[in-house]
């Protein structure tokens, strides 16, 4: 049996850190001020979008620069269902997610015709078109947007404190569901195939991974979650407007930086990236546009030095994944004694002694 490596404690320590973070998030409404709670809500929304972008670019090789379209669609649809159709905010939120999914189908039909490098700008064109289209909706205030009626706002709580904690719980729930179900997806046979695709596409195809179906599934998977995030964001901002709801800066630029810096193609990367991003933004916001420049240079540096980001660097020391999406062989009490077919076993080559 190999001895446990010296740095094995880092994995449980990392998990403990994640658990503490989760406890903090759950305790949020009791320990945080309203501005802090709003910040956490933003954090959770961005986390959801980052996880989804990572799923596309990091695994399915769909490097989209237009995913903000689905955030915007979610925002507008939520607004429409809540204000015009009179749905309760909760139902409207779900309907917003569903609408994003419906839009994802034609969008996919367009951009999947473009491969590789061209898909990025192609998805951007589609997002731009949808944003301009949203600006033509007079009911939603056209190009300048519209605010939520007070009645809808009040249905979530008359006092601001209650309302904000309400929105926060919704954001936490959406993030938790997004994280948990995406984790389950990655643990499933589909996720296993996606991870193989990430490492070697042709190799994955020839061991039976259906590349086309996996791509379609990934793309459709992300849309409703982005739509839900769009709904949450609208609840928080209390208005929709094309440039803000379909903001490429907020929902694509930042998100790409988050995932690239945190570590693309891993589950931990987007989480680390979102935390780092909020730290940078809190401390560097006063230097205005220059924090973008720092983020841009940081991400170019990361691609040059360690394409798998901060988590890739940490992973050189940390011996395992914090959120295990990988699979381990079943424990076998008497490995190799009698279970294997006879005659075909080879002696194991001499393995080097551990340590």
């Amino acid at each position, binding site marked *: 049996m190999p001895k446990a490596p010296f740095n094995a404690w880092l994995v449980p320590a990392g998990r403990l850190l994640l658990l503490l973070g989760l406890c903090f998030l759950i305790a949020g409404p009791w320990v945080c001020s309203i501005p802090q709670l709003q910040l956490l809500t933003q954090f959770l929304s961005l986390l959801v979008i980052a996880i989804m972008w990572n799923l596309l670019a990091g695994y399915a090789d769909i490097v989209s620069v237009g995913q903000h379209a689905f955030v915007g669609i979610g925002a507008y649809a939520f607004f429409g269902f809540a204000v015009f159709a009179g749905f309760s905010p909760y139902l409207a939120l779900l309907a917003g997610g569903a609408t994003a999914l419906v839009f994802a189908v034609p969008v996919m039909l367009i951009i999947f015709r473009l491969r590789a490098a061209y898909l990025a700008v192609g998805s951007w064109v589609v997002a731009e078109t949808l944003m301009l289209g949203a600006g033509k909706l007079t009911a939603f205030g056209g190009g300048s947007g519209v605010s939520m009626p007070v009645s809808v706002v009040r249905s979530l709580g008359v006092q601001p404190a209650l309302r904000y904690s309400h929105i926060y719980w919704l954001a936490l729930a959406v993030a938790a569901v997004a994280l948990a179900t995406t984790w389950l997806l990655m643990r499933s*046979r589909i996720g296993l195939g996606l991870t193989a695709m990430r490492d070697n596409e042709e190799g994955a195809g020839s061991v039976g991974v259906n590349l086309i179906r996996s791509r379609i599934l990934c793309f459709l998977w992300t849309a409703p979650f982005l739509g839900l995030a769009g709904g949450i964001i609208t609840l928080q901002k209390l208005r929709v407007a094309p440039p803000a709801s379909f903001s490429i800066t907020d929902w694509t630029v930042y998100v790409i930086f988050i995932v690239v810096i945190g570590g693309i193609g891993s589950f931990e990367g987007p989480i680390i990236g979102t935390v780092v991003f909020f730290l940078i933004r809190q401390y560097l916001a006063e230097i205005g546009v220059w924090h973008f420049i720092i983020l841009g240079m940081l991400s170019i540096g990361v691609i040059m030095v360690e394409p798998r980001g901060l988590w890739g660097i940490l992973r050189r020391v940390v011996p395992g994944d914090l959120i295990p999406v990988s699979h381990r062989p079943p424990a076998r009490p008497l490995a190799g004694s009698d279970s294997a077919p006879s005659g075909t076993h080879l002696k194991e080559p001499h393995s080097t002694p551990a340590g």
Partner: protein
Amino acid sequence: MLELVSVRRHFGPLKVIDDLDLSVAKGDVLGILGPNGAGKTTLFNVILGVHPVSAGHVRFEGRDITRKRPWSRCQMGIGRTYQVPKPFSHMSVFENVLVAAVSGGQGSIRASRDWAVEVVELTGLAHRMERPAGELSLLDLKRLELAKAVACRPKLLLLDEIAGGLTDMECDELLEIIRGVHRQGATIVWIEHVIHALRRAATRLAVLYGGKIISSGTPDAVLADPRVREVYLGVEA
């Protein structure tokens, strides 16, 4: 079991596979020889569907699979190794094999785990079970290629120069594994330059030259065929 009918594969004006007919019977171990550029790897790409054919048909167990994608063919029972290994470098050896067992063999993860372990052990990779595939040595990568192909539970196994670059001892080990797989019922098509390995394993040999089969039959007959010596060693002076 496998049948290629007048298959052509052209890259622009280059005819890599030129009007090729080939049939493989169940239980065969067919070895394919041929000089560089004879179209051997392209032949595999055509059988697995990595490249579409320019003309002709590919049949597998009586079904026309000419228009099927690689993953469907794999799920139907065609496993394949690559000459240049294509490991999933950031996944463990076990996971590499599990992907194949789950995707190619079409089982659930739960049901495929034991099979994956069995294949890993069968191919002599048990001691590397949880290592990332990116850290493996060449021999282990070749074993992993084989393990992934076997894990798909192939009825037809395509081996592409799996013995190249190995020492004699390593080659013997690999040969033993391949024989084991054959005994369990798989039909094998094996492209190889290491002739002594082929000679010991193959029930039939075929020689590919200029995109056509120029000789086929029992190993001894083919190796004695003057046309084969011609292709390999040049025209008799």
